[in-house]
């Protein structure tokens, strides 16, 4: 056992830190620190900065323009970015479609789309979920019927994150009704300019707009936009789920949130004493710090194993479960630290109200928004089903 970073890893960490120090715009970091919404331009600006450095497609091999990092380097990069309050990389192009095209795409598709992801010309979004099929992807109904050299798509997708900013969408669609429900699914690329597509916003619990519904009515998509073979969409979806979800535990986000919470506890006084000195509050800080320290090691152990075996095992579901619970516990405790002022609704606050520290005006909104992380991407219940079957063999 040796938990210390190797000299090479330390050097890499220094390189990332220096890059962030020199290149992360303070206004962006400030927005992230204060949990304020980022505009499309904010996100795009950060993507382009990363792209110039060659660090946008963090999972990509060098041959395709990625940095060619291993799991530990990716981990260091993600942790440092989160600690520095860098905006997260919007994952749909760089972290999701990119790896899929590298693994399953035709040379023509790779040539057409990969460079446009790295150059930020394309903004991809995801068409997976449907109103009737949340965690149960096999039951999806949006259909793509082959007509000549086109597929004609009809149906509805939902929970399409940041679709309002995207110009393209990758979709799971049903191309066959034969065999098991999983078998008739295909993975297809769609230009959002294609006639027949309508995107409608979904307003979230806390009032924000980050997800959408997408309606497809007789949308004609060139057949060459199919990725892999027809009806191999399930394989691609599983590949994405198992292999390319980097940072599933969100350790870096939680570490940053913990530091912010510790600082908040030192700032907020309650009955004449900072919360950080109130045993009942400080023991909760200690609990979260402990859980998080353990999860960080769990994450590293699994990364190290994945690096050896070539693929993460079902343990990644563990990271999802525990990682989301810790992130939610952090937002819960922040909100509670603020007392009744936490409930003040950001958009309605008079300037300089000083009711809560400015960086924490969104804490309650974030608490509610973060309920989503144990629901989406395969709910924690689905993750437990998976672990029971694969890891425990029950």
């Amino acid at each position: 056992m040796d938990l210390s970073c190797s000299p090479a890893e330390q050097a890499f960490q220094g390189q990332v830190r220096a890059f962030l120090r020199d290149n992360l715009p303070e206004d962006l970091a400030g927005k992230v620190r204060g949990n304020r919404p980022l505009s499309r331009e904010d996100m795009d600006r950060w993507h382009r900065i990363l792209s110039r450095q060659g660090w946008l497609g963090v999972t990509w091999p060098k041959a395709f323009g990625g940095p060619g990092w291993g799991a530990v380097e990716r981990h260091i990069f993600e942790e440092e970015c989160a600690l520095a309050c860098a905006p997260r990389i919007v994952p749909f192009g760089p972290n999701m479609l990119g790896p899929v095209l590298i693994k399953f795409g035709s040379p023509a598709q790779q040539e057409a789309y990969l460079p446009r992801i790295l150059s930020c010309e394309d903004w991809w979004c995801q068409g997976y979920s449907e109103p009737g099929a949340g965690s149960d992807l096999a039951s999806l109904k949006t259909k793509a019927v082959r007509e000549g050299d086109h597929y004609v798509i009809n149906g509805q997708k939902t929970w399409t994150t940041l679709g309002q900013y995207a110009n393209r969408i990758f979709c799971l669609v049903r191309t066959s009704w034969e065999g098991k429900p999983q078998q008739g699914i295909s993975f297809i690329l769609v230009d959002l300019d294609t006639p027949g597509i309508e995107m409608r916003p979904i307003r979230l619990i806390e009032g924000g707009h980050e997800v959408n519904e997408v309606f497809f009515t007789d949308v004609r998509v060139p057949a060459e936009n199919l990725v892999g073979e027809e009806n191999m969409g399930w394989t691609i979806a599983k590949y994405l789920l198992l292999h390319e979800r980097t940072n599933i535990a969100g350790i870096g986000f939680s570490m940053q949130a913990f530091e912010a919470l510790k600082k908040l506890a030192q700032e907020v006084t309650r009955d004449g004493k900072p919360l950080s000195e109130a045993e009942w509050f400080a023991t909760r800080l200690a609990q979260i710090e402990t859980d998080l320290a353990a999860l960080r090691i769990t994450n590293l152990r699994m990364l190290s194993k994945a690096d050896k075996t070539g693929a993460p095992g079902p343990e990644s579901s563990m990271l999802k479960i525990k990682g989301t619970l810790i992130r939610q516990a952090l937002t819960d405790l922040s909100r509670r630290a603020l007392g009744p002022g936490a409930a003040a609704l950001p958009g309605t606050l008079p300037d300089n109200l000083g009711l809560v520290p400015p960086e924490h005006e969104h804490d309650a909104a974030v608490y509610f928004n973060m309920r989503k992380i144990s629901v989406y991407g395969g709910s924690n219940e689905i993750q437990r089903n998976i672990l029971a079957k694969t890891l425990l063999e029950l």
Partner: protein
Amino acid sequence: MQFEMSDDRQMLQDMLRRYLSENYDILHRNAVAYAAPFHDPDRWRALAELGVLQALAPEAAGGFGGEGFDIAAVFEALGGALCPEPVLPVAMAAPLLMAAGSDLETLLDGTRRYGVAIGEAEAPYSLSGRRASHEKGRLTGRKSVVYGGGIAESLLVAARHEGGGIGLYEVDAADAQILPYGMIDGGGAAEVVLEQTPATCLIEDAEAALQEALDFGALALCAEAVGAMDAVQAMLLEYLKTRRQFGVPIGKFQVLQHRAVDLAVEIEQARSITILAASRMKEPDRSRHVAMAKALIGQVAVLVAEEAIQMHGGIAMTWEAPVSHYAKRLVMLDAQLGDRDHHLRRLAAGYANQG
């Protein structure tokens, strides 16, 4: 012992429920709850005409209720409809004005709206530690998160008097600087900034009266939560029975069954502790029972909100789904008038003295 609601209260509650379901549905509620002034004057008048406010004070003060079970009956119905109107300040102002020997007529007929300004940013929950102070008929300080403060005409303010104790003062809202804002769970509150603001002293040493008002307010919140939890449970069970995944209604999955059962058990516990507190509002151990109730309600309400969202899945994350608004209210009401930690610690302090 008997556990049925009296006929009078049942009638009032039924009437109020009916009125709200017909006149304050979730769409109207959301329109009112999240935009200034976070209040619907017409519906407010109608509530007053139904007698909802009068139910919060005893006959001696011009009402027809004012007992723990009256508060509970009214707020359970308000919670069931997620009504954002500022009825809470009425429940708290009534005992204060009574203790002061003041007239409650305009309070109970709804024509004068009161804000009860006790909490401060650094002492949101406990009576000790007030910094706002009174000197020679004027108040200075800042009162924080005053529910209904944005539309109040009168403010009942707790402040330290020259002798060091805490007095109760009435301030004309027009004389104070009021900074109103909305709440993430609906309704409005305000910061009240007092700078040499003229004030009338209602009670010189008001700790006991203020504690009573806080206790009545906390009981009201407990009952509101019970009403909202019942509504959430109904939505959740309906969802579990109708939403299908993997070919069956998701309510067939044993994990969701057990979690729904655990919620049902906790909701019954929450109802019980609220009943117990309501029954003790005239007893010397009132505060202790209210602390128990508010502590347990705080725990259960958050659990119900979080579990309801998780079991609903994505749909509960949307503004469009009523359950999301109920969840927000259930979570945030813990932070009003003392959260679960505050009340548990109050109770805990009680064991030390018994030696």
